[in-house]
């Protein structure tokens, strides 16, 4: 089912890109690479690693391992509109409906035999306990050993060294299970590509800060988190370049992502992964643009190719979702100022303890900047609990409030 889905997606997007080959087609190129990744994961022709969210995908790519975090599958199943049966499968097997929908969906898919048995499994303790538990459950189902990257919360030399050493152990683990060793030259090239993609992404985000923004509610949805999967590859560079070119062209031509942009919004944490009318409503009825997602940012320095393990460890440890809430809050405040935000939308993904759990603290932290936050009670994956009417009403009230009380960050 998933292989056919990705194959159809690939041919459909490819055909669209061919119709306008002179345009940057940024979003389409991004979606095309996602489809290709899906095909590689499900074709049975590649070495596959199911991973946690913050696994070092560029390092895995350098080892010829097609890797992906399992939450990606949950999001894809939601996007297909068929996620309900997978959620029910996991719930029937005893997995609580109060746990994260991404994880329930992927466990349901595994129970239905729709997850390819991986060559290796690399779990990460960051960003969440639920993700780690899901990986342990999947490893048990697949009868596979699990390699866990224990990501410390504090940014200290000892923590960085601890994680850097774990990457070396991970390489040995993968090598012993797949026969693949890590070629230093390949790793260096992968890191160079990561750094190049990083530079381009910094430019993309800088361009998106423009008032009015070339970005809109759809162009950079899921961008930052999924781009991590393409780090270390040419595809990652090409996608970022396409976005850079597209945004530059739009600004040059005086085009904005949302025509006559009036309200600038920050989207906190994950997007709602299934089709829904909320973004369209914001854009069409209120000229409100989601100009920045919390997860769309570069928070790491370029990695030293002579010492990639240390650089990748620092990249992981310093990500805003890791550790104490102040790190995340400072990041969100920084984004709010840089993008001149009027308000923030927090989809409180049911089942997410680490993200949603802190919503009161995030709300209070943004309030200090004069940024109002609307909390939406949703499950970003589970279509069954989507209360469209209630959410629409909340957003409408929020937009009316923003129109009468702008944040003042644009001044």
């Amino acid at each position, binding site marked *: 089912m998933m292989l056919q889905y990705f194959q159809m997606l690939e041919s459909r997007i490819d055909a669209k890109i061919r119709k306008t080959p002179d345009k940057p087609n940024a979003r389409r190129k991004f979606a095309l690479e996602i489809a290709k990744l899906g095909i590689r994961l499900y074709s049975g022709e590649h070495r596959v690693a199911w991973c946690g969210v913050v696994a070092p995908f560029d390092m895995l790519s350098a080892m010829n391992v097609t890797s992906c975090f399992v939450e990606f599958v949950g999001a894809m199943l939601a996007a297909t509109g068929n996620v309900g049966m997978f959620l029910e499968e996991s719930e029937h097997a*005893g997995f609580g409906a109060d746990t994260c929908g991404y994880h329930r969906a992927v466990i349901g898919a595994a129970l239905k035999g729709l997850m390819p048995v991986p060559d290796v499994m690399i779990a990460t303790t960051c960003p969440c306990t639920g993700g780690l538990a899901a990986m342990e459950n999947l490893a048990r189902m697949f009868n*596979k*050993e699990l*390699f866990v990257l224990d990501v410390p919360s504090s940014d200290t030399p000892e923590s960085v060294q601890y994680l850097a050493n774990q990457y070396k152990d991970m390489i040995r683990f993968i090598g012993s299970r797949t026969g693949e060793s890590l070629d230093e030259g390949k790793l260096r090239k992968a890191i160079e590509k990561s750094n190049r993609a990083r530079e381009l992404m910094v430019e993309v985000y800088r361009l998106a800060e423009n008032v009015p923004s070339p970005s809109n509610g759809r162009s950079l949805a899921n961008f930052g988190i999924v781009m991590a999967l393409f780090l270390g590859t040419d595809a990652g560079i090409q996608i970022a370049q396409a976005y850079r070119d597209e945004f530059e062209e739009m600004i040059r031509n005086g085009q904005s992502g949302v025509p006559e942009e009036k309200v600038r919004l920050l989207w906190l944490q994950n997007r709602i992964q299934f089709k829904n009318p909320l973004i369209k409503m914001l854009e069409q009825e209120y000229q409100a643009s989601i100009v920045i997602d919390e997860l769309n940012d570069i928070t790491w320095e370029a990695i030293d190719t002579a010492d990639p393990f240390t650089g990748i460890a620092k990249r992981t440890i310093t990500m805003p979702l890791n550790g104490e809430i102040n790190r995340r809050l400072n990041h969100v405040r920084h984004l709010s100022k840089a993008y001149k935000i009027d308000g923030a939308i927090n989809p409180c993904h049911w089942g997410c303890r680490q993200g949603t759990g802190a919503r009161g603290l995030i709300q209070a932290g943004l309030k200090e900047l004069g940024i109002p936050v609307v909390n939406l009670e949703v499950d970003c994956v589970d279509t069954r609990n989507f209360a469209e009417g209630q959410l629409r009403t909340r957003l409408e009230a929020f937009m009316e409030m923003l129109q009468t009380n702008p944040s003042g960050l644009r001044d």
Partner: protein
Amino acid sequence: MSQERIRWNGHVCSYTPTALIHAAGFTPHRVLPIGDSPDRAGQLLHDNLCPHVKRLLDRAMDDDLPALDGMVFMNCCDSMRRLSDAWRAARPDHRVALIDLPVSNEESAVSFFAGQLTRLSETLSGWSGQSFNQADVSASVYKFNEMAELLDKVSQRVRGGTLEGGSFRLQDLFNRAAIEPVDLTVKLLKTVEEEPELRVTADSGVPVYLFGNVLPDPEAFALFQSSGVHVAGDSVCTGLRAFCHIGGEDSEGVFVRLARGLLDQPRCARTFEPFRPGKIAEEVLTEARRCHAKGVIAYTLKFCDPYTSRLPAIRKVLREAGLPLLVLEGDCTMRSMGQQRTRIEAFVEMLR
């Protein structure tokens, strides 16, 4: 004669290095999710966090605590990490430390955790204004080991049905050991240990193995007893598991010893062996058989990812072994436990 003021330092997790807190000149005080503080945690945390965390925050916001010099949190799960964040906001008068807790007991993890404990010792020393060395920590480990051994002996007597008061009283002793000065508890436990043995009666209840997370209210154990359950063995965060004996020698350094001892203790579901995923299921079965249980009760708090996510595998293993399992989902109040009485009684009837 003036009595020296007790300097309390709070903690909330069974992986906390209480001996280290003690060595710094503090009396470790585990904040338990008990009492009747009003529900206010929702101002800072989402309702989908576990009731343990919310009850603790309720107590902090209600100032239902002794005068604490500081709080030590273990970064053991998402909810606990969020609690430490919320605590800082709710109680700016408390000093707060968050300590990373590895998920496994591999050598590299032990070494890293020992470093975390070394760093904590420096923090605690700053808080107390009292310098201490490895010998002091070692002396504290000795004291806490003595308490752990006594609690183990008392537990054995309760499990064997030879101590007055049964598991209700045992839980009360666990709670006192968690919140009172170690010397007082040791003294108390020694007197309990010397109490004459009761004669075991035939009607002491059906032997059941209990596992799960936080169940500190002695009334819950009274409910088990009155429903015909004899808790023959247990592994819960507020029971014997919170008082592990730290083995090993100081020759490898007391912080390494302490780190290894804590990571080697009977595990909470958040800690596991990556190369044997889901091993907790086999461990529950082994422990249930060791105490000759006729059934197993899992007590988990709502929204506790580490436990609820592992229950399906545990259920499967127990079913294959022919051991019945009763899952009780709680919220740290007796209100929810009272509602479970009928289910517990039916479970016992089935096991008889």
